[in-house]
């Protein structure tokens, strides 16, 4: 449903190298890689936020509805949660439903700054759902959460993906453990400029950590 033909260098994008990949419906991709390598840049490129990357490099993007969970919640602090979801295209009732589905049933009229970090992130996730997305982009959804809250959010996202089997997901994370729970496909981004060093389905859970260990240790690991 989506085809990436990012030739980073020739677009003048300083961080990304050549990234060629296709994303199918139902793909649950975990995007791993060292800090600062360009994972968020790649996500922004897919979301169409990177001005250096021409739209034709992301084939099929204009036909897809995209829900993007940013690292910060990026809800409008001067609008209630319900109003925030309505701005993404939901009706009042739909907004309430989406909020309830992420466990924020009674918080419809709250302002984002009245919520804890974990709740605000769930509210932002509800906004992703409000656009009825074909593709869900998650940028480190579990960062800065305590293990319990991170676990709950992981289960919530897994539940959402199970409920929408035709939805695709790309989730940036540092933790191979997240991939075991969420992913059916693994991307590993590394190098300068950054390229996909690994793009394959996830096999046995055990293998992920083994594979990550190998990928992380291999300095100058070339294209797969």
């Amino acid at each position, binding site marked *: 449903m989506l085809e990436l033909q990012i030739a980073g260098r020739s677009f003048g994008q300083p961080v990304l190298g050549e990234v060629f990949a296709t994303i199918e419906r139902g793909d649950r991709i975990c995007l791993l890689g060292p800090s600062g390598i360009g994972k968020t840049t790649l996500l922004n490129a897919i979301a*169409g*936020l990177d001005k250096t990357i021409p739209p034709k490099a992301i084939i099929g993007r204009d036909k897809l509805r*995209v829900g993007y969970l940013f690292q910060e919640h*990026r809800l409008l*602090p001067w*609008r209630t949660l319900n109003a925030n979801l309505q*701005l993404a295209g939901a009706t009042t009732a739909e907004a309430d439903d989406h909020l309830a589905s992420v466990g924020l049933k009674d918080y419809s009229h709250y*302002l984002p700054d*009245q919520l804890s970090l974990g709740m605000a992130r769930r509210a932002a996730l509800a906004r992703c759902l409000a*656009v009825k997305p074909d593709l869900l982009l998650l940028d480190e959804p579990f960062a800065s959460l305590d293990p319990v809250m991170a676990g709950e959010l992981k289960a919530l996202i897994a539940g959402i993906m199970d409920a929408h089997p035709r939805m695709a997901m790309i989730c940036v994370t540092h933790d191979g453990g997240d991939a075991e729970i969420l992913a059916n496909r693994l991307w590993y981004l590394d190098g300068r400029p950054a390229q996909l060093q690994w793009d394959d389905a996830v096999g046995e859970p055990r293998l992920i950590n083994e594979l990550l260990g190998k990928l992380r240790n291999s300095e100058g690991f070339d294209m797969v």
Partner: protein
Amino acid sequence: MNTFSGRPPAWSYWVVLPSFVLLWALIAWWLKSPLLPTPLNVLDTLIRESASGELWHHLGATLGRVVVAFILAMLLGTVIGLVMGRSRTTNALFDPLLVLMLNLPALVTIILMYVWFGLVEVAAVMAVVINKVPNVAVTVREGARSLDYRLEEMATVYEFTRWQRFRDVWVPQLFPYLMAATRGGLALIWKIVLVVELLGRSSGVGFQLHMAFQVFDVAAILAYSLAFIAVVQLIELAILQPLERRSSRWRQPEAAHA
């Protein structure tokens, strides 16, 4: 002294101004000159002018010009400021002109408008607008430059319409700048309106000041000035402060969860 903690006590607002009026009364009483009337004299003039209807006629004329000029200047200035703040090229093109306009004395604009268009209402209001627009534009430009790029990205991803982006993303962020422009604008505009009236209109507070000046009627000059200061203060209390409270409510929401 609790200079740094909490609100100052309520009485502290009622010290300097009453003392000043008392001082004025004492000096006026001691001098006994018509060039410095006592506060009671001024009040007397105010009541007389108000009873005859003169005061309301001229206050109304001035207020009308202030309101029209203010609305036009805010609209134009906001648009120019937004465009210049969002586009570097536009900013580079028009910045020299903006600096020129900022430094153009109000009196020059007024005289030129009257010379070119005659002593008519449109020329008077245009002169005020031209004086004020650059100030608004500069303030709003500052605000437009500081718009949060993260919310811009969010609005792009979630395909906000132009109107949604303006009303829900930009205006709340620009609000403090618009308020600053409004406050500064009101104070500046009514002073310029007085000059405009003095030079070429036959109604308004400025016109009355002109008449009073010709016969050195200081009591009338003070009465009319104080009356309009009161009007501006009323606008501040009745419109601007409630608006600001309403629009800033989200800044200090009560925490629901730690």
